[in-house]
């Protein structure tokens, strides 16, 4: 791996042409939508809005037309999602399905699975969650113990997942579980992925309140859940390889540096057109960092469009991006004299309160800082 993967790349005309359309749509659809809700970014859940996007052809954009997709380029999809994020649109319902479940099903699924799952994802009607983490398996994902045993009818699933974002609102979870003996199959062997219908008997979902009191992630208990044979996605025993591919999608997008953009907007509004020297300097530096991160992210998108695996470069962008989105509440609370407020207060005060509390999670979800830097170091040949 080398930094030459970061080739300066421009969004092609035909993809750029979508920007005007999506901006006009968002200006209308989000008229009067409060700043603090915009700050929810890709944690804002609104199924109706997701269906509206689906009807516009903006979900599953890169999927083949036969499954309801638009066969659009990664850059076209990029333009749409960055505009959604910048506007603070409520995209959480479909986010995971559109970002990683659909590409995973397309790549590893059978024809029947593609036909079953992909069209409703494209319509914004079917929502997915990610079943990777477990109580004793966070960064060390390969240590999971949830398991599926082969039965005559299919598979019998037991175990527990945790921190499962949106499980309480989702139709399906794509879970990584053990299907083989760890001793026999090696550290990264003996794992498989299943598409679990969350309405099945034996599935219990309990929301976990985060430190601000919001409920977005969950505990998911799996007790003798009977799965059909076609719940297995991809090859039995190939779960680790598939999850690695899935994580490349999970980590490669602009949501990894845009989580706090709502606060830049409220800060600029609070500062006004005549910034003092400190404000000008810090807003300028934030702007420069964002411009550079976006250029890096476009280079990752270029790799995707060339069919290359962007995992290494994506880890660089995610780590740098998480530092950036975590820095924003820190920098901006020093720049505007307005204390964070959960109830009442200005737009800026409310957005600051929300993002200050959310910021710690930015470098946890999707892989921690240390894990990402480990991946980068491995790419550099250091380990």
């Amino acid at each position: 791996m080398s930094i030459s993967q970061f080739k300066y790349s421009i969004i092609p005309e035909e993809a750029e042409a979508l920007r005007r359309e999506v901006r006009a749509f968002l200006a209308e659809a989000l008229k009067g939508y409060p700043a603090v809700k915009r700050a929810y970014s890709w944690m804002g859940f609104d199924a109706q809005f997701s269906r509206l996007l689906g009807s516009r052809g903006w979900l599953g954009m890169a999927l083949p037309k036969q499954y309801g997709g638009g066969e659009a380029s990664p850059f076209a999809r990029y333009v749409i999602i960055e505009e959604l994020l910048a506007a603070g649109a409520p995209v959480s319902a479909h986010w995971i399905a559109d970002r990683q479940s659909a590409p995973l099903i397309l790549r590893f699924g059978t024809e029947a699975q593609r036909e079953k799952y992909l069209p409703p994802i494209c319509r914004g009607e079917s929502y997915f969650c990610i079943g990777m983490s477990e109580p004793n398996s966070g960064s060390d994902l390969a240590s999971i113990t949830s398991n599926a045993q082969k039965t005559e009818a299919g598979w019998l699933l037991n175990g527990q997942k945790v921190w499962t974002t949106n499980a309480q609102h989702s139709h399906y979870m794509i879970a990584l579980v053990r299907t083989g003996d760890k001793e026999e199959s090696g550290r990264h062997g003996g794992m498989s992925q299943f598409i679990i219908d969350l309405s099945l008997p034996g599935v219990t979902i309990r929301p976990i309140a985060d430190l601000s009191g919001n409920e977005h992630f969950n505990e998911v208990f799996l007790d003798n859940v009977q799965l059909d044979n076609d719940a297995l996605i991809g090859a039995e025993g190939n779960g680790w390889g598939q999850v690695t591919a899935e994580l490349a999608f999970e980590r490669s997008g602009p949501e990894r540096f845009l989580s706090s953009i709502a606060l830049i907007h409220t800060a600029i509004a609070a500062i006004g057109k005549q910034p003092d020297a400190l404000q000008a300097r810090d807003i300028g530096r934030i702007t420069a960092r964002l411009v550079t991160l976006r250029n890096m992210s476009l280079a990752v998108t270029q790799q995707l469009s060339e069919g290359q695996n962007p995992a290494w470069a994506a880890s660089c962008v995610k780590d740098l991006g998480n530092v950036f989105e975590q820095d924003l509440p820190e920098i901006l609370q020093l720049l505007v004299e307005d204390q964070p407020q959960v109830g009442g207060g200005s737009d800026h005060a409310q957005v600051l309160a929300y993002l200050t509390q959310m910021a710690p999670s930015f470098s946890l979800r999707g892989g921690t800082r240390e894990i990402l830097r480990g991946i980068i170091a491995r790419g550099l040949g250091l380990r």
Partner: protein
Amino acid sequence: MRELFESTIERLLSDIATPEYVRAAEQNVWPADLWRALEENGITLAGAPEEVGGSEASWADLFVIVRAAGQHAAPVPLVEMLLGNWLLEQCGIGSRSGILTVATDSTLTCSAGALSGELRYVPWGRNAELVVTVVTSDEGYDVVLLEPAAAERIVEGVNVAGEPRDILHFSAALPLASVPLPAGLSPSVLLAGGAMLRSAQIAGALTAIMTLTSAYAGERKQFGRPISAFQAIQQQLAVLAEQTAAANIAAEAAFAQSDTALATFSIAAAKVSTSDAASQATSIGHSVHGAIGFTREYSLHLLTRRLWAWRSEFGSSTYWSKLLGEAVCNAGAEGFWPLITQSHNEQLPISE
């Protein structure tokens, strides 16, 4: 053209501008053979028109030359010459050969066609045969071409990397050429151009530090294993890689977007991103190297001392971020995201 430039400059600089060579140049030895090699291979005039022996390269193509100059700490005013000639072309004076530099810090005033005052902090002012600068005139601003030989006095100075940064005193000196600054060019055009150059040189030097530091971490053994086996070292090198990648793409964006006119918004972003990256990278480079990296003998300082100089030259991170921040605040909250996604040929101009 870019590939050809890249391989040519790479070959010339790795052959000639070795660490020993750069060290010698820091002792006030003009690197005549390096300059001659650059001239003979058409590098010094790469951006100039074909009639005068140039390749008419755009900034997008010149990027690789400027970055390589930074990567090898080339101890010559090559990048200044590319910028000076670019401005001479823009204003109709036309490119010059020889040794040409630029000056942005000036107290020169014009009286009856003669120039008096100082040009300060002129890169290689003592060695240059020509210097390009912008002066205030009765009607506005003029681009002038002067001979340092016409200076009454030269006070030699050096930046923290031992690169010449001289003061030239002129007293009623007649310029070789003087024309009004063309409409559409800001009087601070050389500052913006210089910031763009330094951003690419910084990116180049960071790339070299990255290579040097990773290699060293793989060789140096402590506690019975290479220090690169320690997670704390790996994590620092990962950050160094991120900063190097950020600096490279930021600088390249500024050059790529300056095909028709200097893209000041992107240049400002690039100078801020690269200067900030330089601060982090020098710290990591030295930390990973231990005491050996703090010696005169080891070559790390040939890069880190340049970064400490270049991050402040042609406007520091603070200088450019203030201009950016003023423009951004002026555009208002609604205007922020459109500025981030603006198409490069409709960029918001940033200037004082």
